[in-house]
């Protein structure tokens, strides 16, 4: 885009030939011929990089720049002309989108499957990992045999496990709030 337009400052001379390009296929944002073209559900044509930047500029108000209909990344259709070299979805190759963000949905989609298969285990695994040892030792009377054997230090044992419980609870609350 930048190189082709660099000799553009000539104001009137180039006028005629440029208009003969195809104004029908101009991006509604940069007014240049649409590159990595996408079309909205309301029928408006954009370069994907242009539209992406528009959506990024107003994340809370995702409206079509032309008609203000609702619009979004999932609500546009990429256009593949015959002349295009690679038939890759333009939405996959916008520079501003970091690679890390793309890997995120994959792990998310894997996780529910894992949790589903393991049923109840998943529940206690997710939340209870930290206080796990404490919960088993406090609420499971059979596990108290060691402390019963060493009757001399039951209070200290209890005190320490309570300490850990509080630490664990604060940690979980902090996790939830963060």
């Amino acid at each position, binding site marked *: *885009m*930048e190189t082709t*337009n660099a000799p*553009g*400052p000539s*104001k009137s001379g180039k*006028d005629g030939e440029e208009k003969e390009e195809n104004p029908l296929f101009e991006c*509604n*944002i*940069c*007014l*240049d011929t649409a590159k990595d073209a996408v079309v909205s559900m309301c029928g*408006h044509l954009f370069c994907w990089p*242009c539209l992406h*930047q*528009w959506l990024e*500029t107003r994340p809370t*108000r995702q*409206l*079509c*720049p*032309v008609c*203000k209909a609702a619009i979004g990344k999932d609500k546009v259709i990429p256009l593949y002309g015959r002349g295009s070299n690679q038939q890759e979805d333009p939405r996959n190759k916008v520079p501003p989108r970091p690679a890390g963000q793309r890997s995120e949905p994959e792990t998310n989609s894997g996780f529910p499957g894992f949790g589903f298969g393991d049923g109840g285990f998943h529940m206690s695994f997710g939340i209870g990992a930290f206080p796990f040892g404490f919960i088993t030792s406090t609420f499971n009377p059979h596990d108290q045999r060691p402390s019963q054997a060493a009757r001399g230090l039951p209070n200290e044992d209890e005190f320490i496990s309570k300490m850990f419980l509080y630490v664990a609870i604060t940690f979980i609350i902090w996790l939830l709030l963060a």
Partner: protein
Amino acid sequence: MANIAAQRIKREFKEVIKSEEVAKCAIRLELIGDSFTELRGEIGGPPDTPYEGGLFVLEIKIPETYPFNPPKVRFVTKIWHPNISSVTGAICLDILKDQWAAAMTLRTVLLSLQALMASPEPDDPQDAVVAKQFKENEEMFRLTARYWTSEYAGGPNENQDFQRKVQRLIDMGIESDRACVALSAYNWDLERATEQLFS
């Protein structure tokens, strides 16, 4: 400046140049310098309004993030309008703020401003004094706006009475613009305007 902004302005500039509004002398656009960051717009006062016959100059500044953010537009020509500050020329228009859309152009902005001149919105005012006058005494508003058009925008002047009152205040040593503002704000009541100016 980001390349997309300069590129857009170049293209829009051509669009305004060739559009038929220019032929009718309704809107004009010219560049200031070579940077494509600042332009000067001109709007002809719409017919059947107090602004008819006037030529209103606008200052247009293009932000680096254009067209994803709106251009900054301000009236340079003084104008008496509920949605335009009579002091600074600041404009209250939604498309220049949160209702901006990237597909809008300088051409549509100028046309929108022309439409705003033709239909003021006194319930969403920029200049409270003007808006109050518009709501309470629309005929007085029209006369005042027409006088301002003749005084500042080169419109025809038919109001000898207002001119005489301004001249009276000038004779008392008041600067012409201040005299005009004071008289306009007090519905051209010479006594009250004088009182306010000397209090």
